[in-house]
């Protein structure tokens, strides 16, 4: 038997069994159910114990213009929010990791993650109040002579609010990578004659890739699946794919159809994240290649 060559089973490992059961029952099984119920024709809420099999949900989904349009919109919004987060977070994370005095870094990071500890809904509410017509922002702008129109209840507001919510994650991820780059490495590169741009593309950027990747993962995926932000601030044309999935459950109770939509969303997101990971690994290799 193979087991003889392996380390003997340590009974301490049995302490993980409650969470194995939980992960199995509350994560794996529900995901499988989502897949199975995509092919079910009746509503579980209506009290029919075992619905029959059907392909209607899939056919309806493939033929639904709304779904593909909203899916595209969600992915585009997620890409925009992720990009905005990267653009805002990179200099900020760099400043905390490299410019701020080492003893002050943890204070700055605590300040950055503080909003995370207050609820997302309160952050949304705070931003809504700031940008609403008659809110502080427009009043201030008016005082200095700029007449603006409120963004609230437009798609711009959705992007703004989502960026506001997820920015701390991106700063945190980038910071943890940038902090790990030794100053000496950058000095060495500069002294040996590399330009600042080259130092960035050949050293700083590749070394920040792991943080950037987890940042993208932590921002892109939840934003693509968001439904309450567009519902609250997006206005009449704010719906995203999350809103459509939500409607199948909280509104029309179209469970099988909703399951099919969420499965597709999950698959699309996994593929995108897998491709991002691959691209990053490749970039790391090619950029790192001429360094060695």
């Amino acid at each position: 038997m193979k087991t003889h060559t392996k380390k003997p089973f340590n009974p301490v490992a049995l302490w993980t069994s409650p969470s194995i059961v939980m992960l199995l029952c509350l994560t794996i099984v529900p995901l499988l159910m989502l897949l199975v119920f995509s092919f079910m024709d009746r509503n579980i809420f209506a009290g029919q114990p075992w619905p029959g099999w059907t392909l209607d949900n899939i056919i309806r989904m493939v033929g639904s213009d709304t779904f593909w349009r909203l899916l595209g919109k969600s992915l585009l919004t997620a890409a925009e929010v992720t990009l905005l987060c990267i653009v805002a977070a990179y200099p900020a994370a760099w400043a905390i990791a490299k410019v701020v005095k080492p003893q002050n870094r943890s204070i700055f990071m605590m300040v950055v993650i503080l909003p995370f500890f207050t609820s997302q809904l309160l952050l949304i509410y705070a931003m809504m109040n700031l940008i609403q017509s008659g809110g502080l922002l427009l009043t201030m702008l008016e005082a200095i002579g700029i007449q603006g129109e409120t963004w609230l209840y437009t798609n711009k507001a959705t992007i703004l609010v989502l960026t506001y919510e997820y920015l701390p994650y991106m700063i945190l991820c980038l910071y943890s990578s940038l902090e790990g780059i030794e100053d000496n490495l950058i000095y060495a590169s500069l002294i040996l004659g590399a330009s600042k741009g080259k130092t960035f593309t050949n050293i700083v950027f590749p070394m920040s890739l792991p943080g950037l990747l987890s940042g993208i993962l932590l921002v892109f995926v939840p934003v693509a699946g968001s439904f309450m932000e567009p519902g609250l601030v997006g206005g009449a044309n704010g719906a995203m794919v999350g809103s459509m999935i939500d409607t199948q459950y909280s509104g029309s109770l179209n469970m099988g159809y909703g399951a099919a939509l969420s499965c597709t969303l999950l698959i699309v997101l996994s593929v995108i994240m897998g491709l991002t990971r691959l691209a990053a690994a490749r970039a790391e290799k090619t950029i790192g290649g001429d360094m060695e």
Partner: protein
Amino acid sequence: MKSKGFNTVMMVCLWIVLAFMYIPIIAIIGMSFNATPYGMFPYVFTTDWYVTLFTTSNLLPACWYSLKFAFCVTLAAVVIGTMTSFGLQAYAPKWANRFNFVLQLPIIIPWLVTGISLLLLFSFLGSGRSEFSMFLGNLIVVLPYVVLLVNGRFLSMDRNPESAARLLGAKPARVFFDITLPAIAPGILAGGIMAMIMCFNNFVVQYYLIPIGVQTLPTLVFTRIRSGYQADLNALSAIIVLVSVVIVIALSKLGFSAGGLFGMSSGSTSKKGE
């Protein structure tokens, strides 16, 4: 570092980002003391909204309910999470990695999908929207954070005293309670605080699993935001921000850096880099 001008530009960017993050929060705190019900001006100082919050508002009961609920979930998450982390140390590295992947699924999967898949499961099992379903749903969402934070503590602690105690004849239970537990206690505490905050704030899972007629704070806030300006909500926001500040200070006094709190973002990447 690089040139001085470049550093200045970076610092300016940092302050702009911080301003972006804090102006809405500070504005809400300012408005919670403002008697003018809509907008900002004219600014008239008042504490009436706090009186409303503590007397007639329905936010306070929901807040208490959420605190009690989050506390129960946290208690379960801390016990199960600590057990898991303890057992995980005995795994072969290959299996530990596999376990960690599955453990991170509830973090990675959008809450919307988690919420509806759990609603499917519980409807199928017959418990539907109920406190029981909501409890389990929130538990699975916060459990990974506890395990990751306690794991971090295990990785940095010295395991020799445990072996010494065992050699000297201490029973496993005694070794755990006298040596292991005190060493990982800060991780458990941080995990508990994270679980409590995540659960207290988690709207999506509660939205799908909440029994009819019950309101947690997030679901109530969601309903009320839809109807516009809420003066007592401003007051509650100000209090919650204040409590968050206290928690963040407490966490940093416990020795947790911001990165350490999100074991999954910094921890997993730094391991890959090594």
